[in-house]
């Protein structure tokens, strides 16, 4: 006998993500899912953002990595509430992983919760976590071909932070092409040129972030 089902296979993840979003909303915390390839500077961005906001925005962090606690320790050293998820091999975070650790953070005492996804330009864009916004980080040394090679992540993100801008003179990366291709894929993308090493552009990014949560 034939039975019509017509259900999204990721329905379980989507349902948990919707529940997470509700819990975050009730706690009054804005959740940002940070995605990038490995080594683009996600943890460095968090460190810079925490220093720049200097307690004016109350920040919490969920760190996602395949293994290890190095990133969480870097955040903890700054006196910020942080919890580490080790996916044990999985290439992305999913909504249930967030659900299992969210209560270890003082959600009601936070303005922004950053979720640092596993370093990977593909799968993290597919799985909702219950976030308000996805952003992505691309270090310019990764090359100007990335937007057209990994379009989904650029299409899903609200902001693109181009990190390691201080390395520009030493690479063949065409900054104009990165921006042009990214905006073609996603005309609403907010782009920031930053260097987590020198601090360039961090002020602009934090200004944008501050305006965002005041809305």
């Amino acid at each position, binding site marked *: *006998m*034939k*039975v*019509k*089902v*017509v*259900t*999204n*296979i*990721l*329905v*379980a*993840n989507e349902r948990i993500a919707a529940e997470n979003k509700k819990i975050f909303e009730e706690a009054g915390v804005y959740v940002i899912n940070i995605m990038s390839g490995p080594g683009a500077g996600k943890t460095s961005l968090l460190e810079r953002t925490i220093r720049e906001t200097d307690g004016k925005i109350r920040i919490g962090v969920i760190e996602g990595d395949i293994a290890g606690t190095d990133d969480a320790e870097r955040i903890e050293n700054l006196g910020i509430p942080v919890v580490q998820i080790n996916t044990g091999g*999985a*290439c*992305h975070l*999913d909504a249930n992983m967030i659900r299992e650790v969210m209560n270890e953070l003082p959600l009601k005492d936070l303005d922004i919760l950053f979720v640092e996804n596993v370093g990977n330009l*593909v*799968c993290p864009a*597919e799985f909702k976590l219950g976030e308000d916004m996805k952003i992505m980080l691309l270090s310019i040394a990764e090359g100007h071909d990335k937007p*057209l090679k990994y*379009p*989904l992540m650029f299409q899903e993100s609200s902001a693109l932070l181009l990190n390691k801008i201080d390395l520009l003179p030493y690479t063949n990366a065409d900054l104009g092409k990165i921006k042009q*291709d990214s905006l*073609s*894929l996603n*005309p609403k993308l907010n782009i920031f040129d930053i260097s987590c090493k020198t601090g360039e552009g961090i002020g602009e990014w934090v200004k944008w972030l501050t305006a965002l949560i005041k809305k």
Partner: protein
Amino acid sequence: MHEVSIAQGLLDIAIENCKKGGYKGIELIKVKIGKASGVMPDSLLFAFEAMKVGTIAEKAVLVIDEIPVSGVCNECKSNFSVDDAYVTSCPKCGHMSLTIETGRELNIDEMEVF
């Protein structure tokens, strides 16, 4: 890259629907997988064959209907449908602002039960 969790998700949904309807087992599951969904059909079939063992879907055949990426160009307004996994510019005018309508599906469509 995450075909095992997709296979598990589709088995869970199919088995739940089968039991809810009061049937004994599943013979066939038909899924619609968009070409831009990031799911590789061969890997999904492989994962499905391994994971169905010992369930009421043990004898089930997985049939994958691949959905091409299609949509409308925001510039020249023409409709397009391509065989590639991603489309970044309009095949007709080359403009890059597109509205994608199909190609990201990840759905169970129907199944045959006994």
